[in-house]
């Protein structure tokens, strides 16, 4: 009985915080737009009993899904989000790996401090930090001023409101998600493994590719998913830093919801986004599982 309670708690949690909201979203995605409060129908009318329930289900339909597949704006938005998320994940890996590596190689007493520095930005509002980038990246921003000042460029560069700014924003925001799992993998690696590799005839570079990289693999995979999954649906960064041509599904979703007040279409966009994300989420879980097995 006690065992059952212990297992039940996380499932109840999952049910209350994920399954229930998700079912509500799914239900809205099968509804139609209506000028009312809430702005969709049908509404479940239990006063007519069983007939009410039957009438309710009869009115749910696939129209929104048909609409979404029919209009290529949505497909383009999904594809463009995928592209941006993939590139941003790769860039985060490029920046994050050396940081994690340096942290793992740093003297033992420095590591907690370095870890703090990585986590520290989380203690201020995400929104403010993204706004700060507007000040840095703008035509009159600090970055342009600096580069003009040291004579690197003659005219200010347009960075803000382009995809480049979105990449910078995502790399900056999600860097800790990349650094921490890679650091965790590298940190438990025994230095004598590299010595053994060298002893057996590897150069330093070979030892890196044959020993360090494979041992960091699970951390790299975890980090990539942790960056890729949230950046795919990212809304704040593209809408604040991106330009009018930055097409991301998060932005589309926002506009459907708040500008058009079309909850059913917005919900459909969300459901499809989730379906797209399920594949990487499952892959991510697999990776974690495999890692636990080799550790255990």
């Amino acid at each position, binding site marked *: 009985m006690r065992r059952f309670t212990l297992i039940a708690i996380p499932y109840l949690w999952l049910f209350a915080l994920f399954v229930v909201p998700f079912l509500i979203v799914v239900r809205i995605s099968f509804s139609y737009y209506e000028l009312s409060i809430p702005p969709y129908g049908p509404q479940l009318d239990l006063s007519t009993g069983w007939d009410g329930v039957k009438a309710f289900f009869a009115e749910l339909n696939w129209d929104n899904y048909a609409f979404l597949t029919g209009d290529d704006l949505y497909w383009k938005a999904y594809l463009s989000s995928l592209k941006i998320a993939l590139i941003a994940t790769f860039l985060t890996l490029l920046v994050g790996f050396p940081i994690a590596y340096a942290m793992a190689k740093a003297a033992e007493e420095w590591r907690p401090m370095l870890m703090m520095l990585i986590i520290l930005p989380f203690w201020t509002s995400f929104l403010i930090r993204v706004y700060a980038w507007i000040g840095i990246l703008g035509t009159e921003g600090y970055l342009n001023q600096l580069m003009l000042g040291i004579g690197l460029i003659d005219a200010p560069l347009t960075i803000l409101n382009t995809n480049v700014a979105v990449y910078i924003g995502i790399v900056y925001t999600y860097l800790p998600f990349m650094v921490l799992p890679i650091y965790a993998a590298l940190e438990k690696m025994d230095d004598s493994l590299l010595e053994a590799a060298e*002893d057996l005839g590897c150069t330093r570079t070979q030892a890196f590719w044959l020993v360090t990289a494979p041992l960091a693999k699970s951390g790299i995979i975890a980090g990539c998913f942790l960056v890729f999954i949230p950046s795919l649906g990212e809304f704040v960064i593209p809408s604040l830093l991106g330009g009018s041509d930055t097409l991301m599904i998060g932005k589309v979703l926002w506009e459907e919801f708040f500008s058009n007040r079309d909850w059913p279409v917005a919900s459909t966009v969300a459901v499809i986004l989730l379906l797209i994300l399920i594949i990487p989420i499952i892959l991510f879980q697999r990776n974690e599982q495999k890692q636990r097995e080799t550790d255990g």
Partner: protein
Amino acid sequence: MAQSPQDVFAPWDDATEKPLIRFRNVTKNFGDFTAIDDLTLDIYAKEFFALLGPSGCGKTTLMRMLAGFEKPTTGTIELDGKDIANVPPNQRAVNMMFQSYALFPHLSVYENIAFGLKRSDMDKADIPARVDEMLRLTRLQKFAKRKPHQISGGQRQRVALARSLAKAPKLLLLDEPLGALDKKLRHETQFELMDIQEKTGTTFVIVTHDQEEAMTVASRVAVMDAGVIVQVATPDRIYETPNSVYVADFIGEVNLIEGHAAVDNGVATISWAEGQPPITAKTDLTADTQCTYAVRPEKITITQHEPQDRPNKIKGAVLDIAYLGNISTYHVELPDGKVIKAQTANDRRIARRSFTWEDTVWLSWTDTAGVVLTA
């Protein structure tokens, strides 16, 4: 080592022989801690050189300097007559078996063993045969496909051994290679190692905490203490003629008796306790001195009656008997409370043994049984 008398292997006695490894005044400091202190040592090709010493005395540090992971703070190390200070580990014809094994966790047992071979100039097609040979040697055939975390501690140790042996290096450094093995497997592996050594002519430097192992396999043994080598000699010399109390006490069991030696013509007469006759012993000493007399328990005979014609004899009472199967150690208490250990072979069944607790017995030994030590 088993050698026939006409080809005694003793390059260290031959002045024309060039050592393979030469430590010259090597000191290694870690911060202000001196791990190796002004060490000078020659190791010859085809030797099986054992390093013995208490934990933390610098055995691993010595090995790591040979493998190239540490640089001497001062002094030079020569391999084949060349200073190797600037040769990186991957270019030394030296392989090391790590005390921590350092197996690659992401590779199978097979791939671990093949790792070094793939990095060598060995023909790709010959690698599987070599790996199989190593697997057979270390009895790991059944585990070839497993990852290191799926095998036992002793099996891991054997993988580490196989991996370091695979490349058949000129010099092989084994840092406690057999510690995790059971006695039987350890003996078998010791003989395998000696066999490999004889076949390939590889020079072995081996660290061990097991002195019996050092005695069995080594051509020479070095006893270390706090970064210094106290004595280097063949196993029998180390055992029979230790140069110091430290070595005598570190290797095997010994009775240590402090006293004053009066030396006359190669014979020391050691007075060591009130009311006891002095001990006589042959010695190289020339002057009278304070000394410690060291005599091994198995050199002491235990009898019921006072023996005749024995230069050294004392009377005491049996305090304790440690039965070890093939031998028994008698702890005999002298009237002044000092305890002397004597060993006898158990060539009779227990029921017919002649002494028991509190029996009065005589201990006796010859004048060549022990050594007079001043250090």
